[in-house]
């Protein structure tokens, strides 16, 4: 029974609230009147009776409030009331609400996005069962990473006890001709244990076995799930069938599971065994002795990466006769060992960590700003709180009301924040440089979102509740007297501190962004060594047995070139084995000059080119002559060297006529016939790379992939289809890839810096706006609070100019303090991004001065509005009561 009556009143209290309220009012007032009557009967005068009665009662409204709080469903009722009131308050000050909500949304959204990206790439373990045990091993070439040779790999796997499994791999891009049109696939040639190192196996079919890896075994491939679906209609009978790759038959033995992320080659579709020859260990010009293999190993569970490194370095230091070594793979510097995760993220780690730092600053600024806004609003509502407290609102009730308002703000900010995060993550992935690994695995991270929302909500709550606490603690009498617009000194101080903090944080971000911007400027001012405009480049491969004969391959490239030169709009064209700013990696060879001591060797880039390549690139000739049609197979081998190499090897001599070997030393000498300008090979940031140019006709081997550069008379990109058709008119089956203008390649080489720059600029702008809002808010608030004082000043003769100066001086001194503090932070931050800088000092004075000027300008603007308002205050205000 009691339960039912409670339910009944619960619903009445909620739904017939108005009625219940009037009922209560009647009841309490009735009580008061009866009490007064009683007193009159006892002999008091009616007035005195009423006064005594009301004193005894303690206030009709207070009693009603106490009853309401005792009622069933009171919490729900007051929650609705709080929500309604909260929304009304937010609507009442739309500007402030919008700023607070946007601030929260940006802070939460950006943080969630960046943390989601960074977490996925740097911290989340790779999607393999023993990902923390997978190590990558590099030959140590004086501190830098060099791919290992096949025979080094063999020696390590035979002698080391640290590995559960180990494998080497290289990229393989076969041309698949079984389909309707030639299709170039991305893939890898791997040694047999590759998938065992990663801890994955085919969804069906079988894994590679050691016998598949023998150089005379039948050719087999494992294909990706995606390729199986797109090219073979998800046909389960694919296993055992043969496909044609590069003109040869391969048997499909397995299909990998879906959604498998192969971080070492994200776009790979086919895998085949390496099938290297283990017996030719003494043949030094064999491919098995080339530094071109990446090595990965699954360490034993009890072996740490450090322990493994120690063990294999001991092996490197103690050669055995069973495994003879060659001079360029002597392992004299040992190995470099890294976890797979660290290895794939090495290039992007500095940029990502810098972004993480930057976005944390943005969150901090957002928090400071929200705190500031709520404090300012709290100060303005001081009177309201005192009034409500006088009308019987308990302290708990007022705090609850403010909590509700703050929560409303946070909820609005959070919802918008999700949208911002979703868009930012999409934008980030779209914007990300190609070297950013694992972009496919990036999605909005719920935990991070909750964290960011939580932090801002808690700060909002704290900031929102302080005014209620202050108001409810205060003496009601005094409070009511000055319930208008005064605030305590403590509040002003807090808000000043917050503004200073905002300015300082904004300065740190802006300086970082400025340094990056200036760096990128410097970077693009670097001359690449050739004229990049109007150049279109693409790569042509020869595939199929027909081109096993080097002469057939050379003939194909020569014919293709002749055909391309006939295309209308082509001004010049040439082939090179190595293209600057492309992904070409394996162009470095040892060069030995005639007067070098035996065994000494310089690492140089080898460019095997067709005559006309240097002219097309407009690489300047410094001395001697360029390569031409006479430098054919039967002529004396001729070579060009770069200026940097000439200066280093022949500082006081004429290099023309000197001789050198490049690659194998048992071939005829190349005679230097010319010196050409330096060309940046891998990136604009790299030093001048020593280079040797020879004609492909005089090279000791024929490259099976050559890059074509074409100088166009008009738009280079639009020439691509005609060029492709020209090459295919020679042989339809040859894949053409990597079509790009040289300017695109240049831009891509700076993509990571640009990525960091774009984000830093975005963060910097957000910080600047927030700091401006902060300064404006505080000054505007203080002008309102000091209306009377300003009025008195102007009544006493202060000019409008004086008053404006008064306000602006205050704003600018806050800014100045923030700038001074921020400078220390900026110096520390620029130290952290030093790896992303180029060509400027991390304390670059131009950047610092420009940023300070920008901040001063923005804060000046933010000061001006309140100052102007202050100067318009009518001195007559002092005559009015507050």
């Amino acid at each position, binding site marked *: *029974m009691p339960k039912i009556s*409670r339910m009944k009143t619960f619903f009445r209290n909620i739904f017939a609230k108005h009625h219940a309220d009037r009922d209560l009012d009647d*009841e309490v007032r009735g009580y008061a*009147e009866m009490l007064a009557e009683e007193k009159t009967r006892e002999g008091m005068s009616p007035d005195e009776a009423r006064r005594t009665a009301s004193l005894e009662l*303690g206030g009709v409204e*207070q009693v009603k409030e106490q009853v309401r709080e*005792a009622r069933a469903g009171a919490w729900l009722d007051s929650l609705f009331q709080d929500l309604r009131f909260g929304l009304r308050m937010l609507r009442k000050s739309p500007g402030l609400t919008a700023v607070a909500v946007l601030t929260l949304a940006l802070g939460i959204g950006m943080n969630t996005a960046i943390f989601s990206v960074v977490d996925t790439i740097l911290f989340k373990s790779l999607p393999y069962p023993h990902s923390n045990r997978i190590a990558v091993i590099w030959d140590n070439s004086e501190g830098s990473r060099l791919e290992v040779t096949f025979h080094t790999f063999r020696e390590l796997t035979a002698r080391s006890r640290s590995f559960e499994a180990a494998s080497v791999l290289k990229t393989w891009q076969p041309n698949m001709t079984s389909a309707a049109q030639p299709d170039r696939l991305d893939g890898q040639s791997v040694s047999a244990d590759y998938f065992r190192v990663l801890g994955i196996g085919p969804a069906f079919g079988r894994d590679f076995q050691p016998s598949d890896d023998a150089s005379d075994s039948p050719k087999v491939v494992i294909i990706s799930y995606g390729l199986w679906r797109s090219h073979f209609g998800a046909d389960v009978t694919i296993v055992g069938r043969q496909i044609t790759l590069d003109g040869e038959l391969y048997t499909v033995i397995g299909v990998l599971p879906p959604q498998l992320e192969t971080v070492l080659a994200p776009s790979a579709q086919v895998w085949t065994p390496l099938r290297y020859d283990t017996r030719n260990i003494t043949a030094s010009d064999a491919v098995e002795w080339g530094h071109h293999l990446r090595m990965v190993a699954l360490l034993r569970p009890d072996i740490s990466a450090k322990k493994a490194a120690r063990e294999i370095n001991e092996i490197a230091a103690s050669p055995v006769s069973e495994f003879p070594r060659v001079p360029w793979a002597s392992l004299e510097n040992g190995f470099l060992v890294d976890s797979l995760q660290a290895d794939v993220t090495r290039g992007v780690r500095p940029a990502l960590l810098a972004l993480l730092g930057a976005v944390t600053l943005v969150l901090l600024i957002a928090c400071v700003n929200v705190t500031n806004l709520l404090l300012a609003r709290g100060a303005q509502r001081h009177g309201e709180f005192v009034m409500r407290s006088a009308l019987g609102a308990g302290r708990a009730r007022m705090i609850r009301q403010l909590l509700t308002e703050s929560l409303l703000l946070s909820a609005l900010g959070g919802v918008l924040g999700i949208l911002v995060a979703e868009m930012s993550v999409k934008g980030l992935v779209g914007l990300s440089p190609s070297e950013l690994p694992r972009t496919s695995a990036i999605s909005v991270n719920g935990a991070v979102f909750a964290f960011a929302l939580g932090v801002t909500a808690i700060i909002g709550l704290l900031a929102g509740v302080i005014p209620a606490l202050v108001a409810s603690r205060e003496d009601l009498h005094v409070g009511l007297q000055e319930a208008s617009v005064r605030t305590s000194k403590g509040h002003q101080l807090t808000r000043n501190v917050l503004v200073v903090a905002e300015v300082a944080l904004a300065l740190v971000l802006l300086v970082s962004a400025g340094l990056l911007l200036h760096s990128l400027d410097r970077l693009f001012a670097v001359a690449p060594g050739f004229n990049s405009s109007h150049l279109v480049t693409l790569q042509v491969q020869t595939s199929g047995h027909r081109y096993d004969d080097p002469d057939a391959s050379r003939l194909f490239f020569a014919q293709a070139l002749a055909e391309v030169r006939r295309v209308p709009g082509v001004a010049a064209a040439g082939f090179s084995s190595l293209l600057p700013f492309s992904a070409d990696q394996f162009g470095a060879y040892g060069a030995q000059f005639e007067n070098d001591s035996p065994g000494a060797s310089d690492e140089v880039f080898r460019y095997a080119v067709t005559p006309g390549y240097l002219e097309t690139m407009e690489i300047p000739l410094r001395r001697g002559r360029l390569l031409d049609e006479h430098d054919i197979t039967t002529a004396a081998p001729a070579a060009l060297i770069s200026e940097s190499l000439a200066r280093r090897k022949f500082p006081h001599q004429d290099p023309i006529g000197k001789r050198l070997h490049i690659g194998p030393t048992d071939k005829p000498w190349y005679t230097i016939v010319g010196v050409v300008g330096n060309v940046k090979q891998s990136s604009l940031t790299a030093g001048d790379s020593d280079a040797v140019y020879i004609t492909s006709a005089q090279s000791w081997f024929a490259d099976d992939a050559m890059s074509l550069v074409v100088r166009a008379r008009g738009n280079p990109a639009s020439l691509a289809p005609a060029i492709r058709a020209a090459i295919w008119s020679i042989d339809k089956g040859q894949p053409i890839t990597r079509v790009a203008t040289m300017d695109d390649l240049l831009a891509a080489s700076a993509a990571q810096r640009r990525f960091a720059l774009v984000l830093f600029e975005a963060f910097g702008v957000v910080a600047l706006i927030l700091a401006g809002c902060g300064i404006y808010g505080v000054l505007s608030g203080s002008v309102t609070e000091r209306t009377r004082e300003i009025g008195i000043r102007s009544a006493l003769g202060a000019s409008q100019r004086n008053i404006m100066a008064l306000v602006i001086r205050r704003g600018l001194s806050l800014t100045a303090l923030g700038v001074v503090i921020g400078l220390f932070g900026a110096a520390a931050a620029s130290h952290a991004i030093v790896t992303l800088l180029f060509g400027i000092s991390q304390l670059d004075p131009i950047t610092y001065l420009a940023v300070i000027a920008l901040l001063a300008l923005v804060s000046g603007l933010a000061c001006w509005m309140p100052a102007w308002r202050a100067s318009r205050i009518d001195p007559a205000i002092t005559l009015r009561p507050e």
Partner: protein
Amino acid sequence: MTRDQMNDQLNDQTNLLQGTLDMMILKSLALDQMHGLGISRRIEQLTKGTFQVKPGSLFPALHRMEEEGWLVSSWGESENNRRAKFYRLTRAGRRQLNSETQRWGRISLAIARALEAS
């Protein structure tokens, strides 16, 4: 008087009456229905002026007890022809009065014994 001090005083009274206020209200309504002021006067009379029930405690208690189903209320005329809300015991209220009385008897006996001992 500040708000805090006011609260403190209210709280003291409430604490003093806690548990016993319900019982006193039930007891005062045992014979007849009554309005708020009547209840408060009746309690004073029953306790010979020891307890003075303030409206700030009385009304919340009345409304709570009504929601518990121990009391029902209806509007009526007071002795001076004023509109007033009258409360009266329900069966559940009467049961509650009995069990509260018994509980109180046990407690006061126990306390009296504890104080006599030593």
